């Protein structure tokens, strides 16, 4: 259970998050949507303890994330996987070492076990032969899949996906969403997915939160968001705009 309580955050003089609260139940798959710059990525980073809020609290299983010291925070992060928007693959390691890194950090696995887990992970993302390649030798879609493999190699109970299909073609996006659905079905993870791909996010999430200008505008399940009469929700969910473009 993740509880976000009254989070506010100012960044470079601008209020990015304004008194945001939400609950994420165990096993829930939340779709976090909304216009760019609305604070979606920031809220994920605050939940993980990567960014400290100006006010408010985040609890993961009743543990106050921002009261933890570096060691306790590291222990907590063993239970969280994160797929970053810009892949965030370590460019000085090959793909196999990137995927193996979280397991090596745990320090409880033998090299044979790690090699086996990496082999299986590469097979799961349908890239069995790229272990020796470095991130700069991969396409965007391949990087996303390797990053995904690294995020879930420890089989964490909580996974955050920050725009997993950003900049990818529709076929690769579809493959990524199939992977996400597979991991949710197999592991029963609690997940939060940020995406602008409404078609894809509909398939993998059961609840949706729309964040705009640092505030939660809408929170509800698929039927509720389909039926919502809030203009920005309608615009965003159905993908239309009545604003005039000054071209």
């Amino acid at each position, binding site marked *: 259970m993740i509880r976000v309580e009254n989070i506010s955050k*100012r960044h470079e*003089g601008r209020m990015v998050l304004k008194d945001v609260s939400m609950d994420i139940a165990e096993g829930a798959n939340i779709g976090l949507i909304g216009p760019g710059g609305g604070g979606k990525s920031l809220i994920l*980073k605050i939940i*993980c303890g*990567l960014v400290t809020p100006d006010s408010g609290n985040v609890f993961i299983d009743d543990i106050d994330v921002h009261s933890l010291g*570096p060691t306790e925070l*590291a*222990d907590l*992060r*063993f239970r*969280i*996987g*994160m797929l*970053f*928007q*810009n*892949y*965030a*693959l*370590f*460019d000085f390691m090959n793909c196999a070492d990137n995927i193996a*890194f*979280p397991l090596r*950090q*745990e*320090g409880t696995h033998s090299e044979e076990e790690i090699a086996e887990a990496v082999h299986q992970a590469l097979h799961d993302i349908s890239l069995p032969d790229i272990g020796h390649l470095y991130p700069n030798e991969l396409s965007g879609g391949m990087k996303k899949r390797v990053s995904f493999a*690294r995020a879930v190699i420890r089989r964490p109970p909580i996974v955050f996906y920050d725009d997993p299909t950003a900049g990818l073609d529709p076929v690769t996006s579809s493959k990524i969403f199939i992977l996400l659905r597979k991991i949710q079905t197999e592991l029963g993870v609690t997940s939060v997915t940020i995406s602008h791909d409404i078609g894809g996010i509909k398939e993998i999430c059961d609840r949706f939160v729309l964040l705009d200008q640092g505030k939660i505008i809408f929170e509800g399940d698929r039927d509720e968001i389909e039926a919502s009469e809030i203009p920005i929700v309608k615009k965003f969910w159905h993908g239309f705009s009545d604003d005039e473009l000054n071209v």
Partner: protein
Amino acid sequence: MSDQPLQSDENGETSAFRRLLSSLGEPVLEVAQTIKGIFQVFGLTWYYMLKGRPRWKATVEQLHEVGNRSVLFITVTLGFLGMILIYQAGYQAERITGDLQMLGGLFLQLLLREFAPTITAMMIATRVATGMAAQIGSMVVTEQVDALRMCAAQPVDYLVVPRFIATTIMMVVLSIFAVLVAYSAGAMTAYFSFGLNVRTFVDMSFIGWFDVLLGLSKALAYGMAIPIVACHAGLNVFGGSEGVGRATTNAVVNASLAVVFLDFVISGLGYVILGLVT
């Protein structure tokens, strides 16, 4: 800086005094923040060095990066410096006294106490500190540092400790190497320019334990300061590639300032201690 706007006076205008205070206060706070941050990174580095898992592979890679790849640079700069200093000193000495017998001995003392560690540190600050800041800064911008944290690795432990150990060791090694290069270049210059015999030039009679200890202390201090300042600049990058550029500039400026400041402090302390023991 406070997010509150400056208060206006009765006429609705911000007083010149307040504006002056603000313009003075902002850079002062920035410097104080930077110094505090540098000491935090320094403390954490020692903590993870003593408590963390040793990273031999990364440390050996950094030893190669800082040490081996700086050898040519140090050879060229210190070699030319040795030649120039001896030529200038010899020219002046010949004009004034005509006696060059003490040239080698005094030059060696100067090298050990000052030039070898300090000039080497300046060169390392230029070549290595910029590289460290740019590399770590790029990792921050591309979220690799966040990814390290999410994999339960501490950035200071993983990125700073190997660089700190490698630079501290290599600063001492390169300073000794710099003495040899500059002194050899000086000896050749003295021979070819003034006909001074190498046996006469190589004179250890001026060298005592104080000179060696002072030089080594400086090399050690610079070796610790440079990676900490550089890594702090890298870890505090914000604002994309522009931020990385800013961080590299900050790294080389702050590392050079740290070297000059440490030089002043260690030299001062050294002479105070020398005065007490003699």
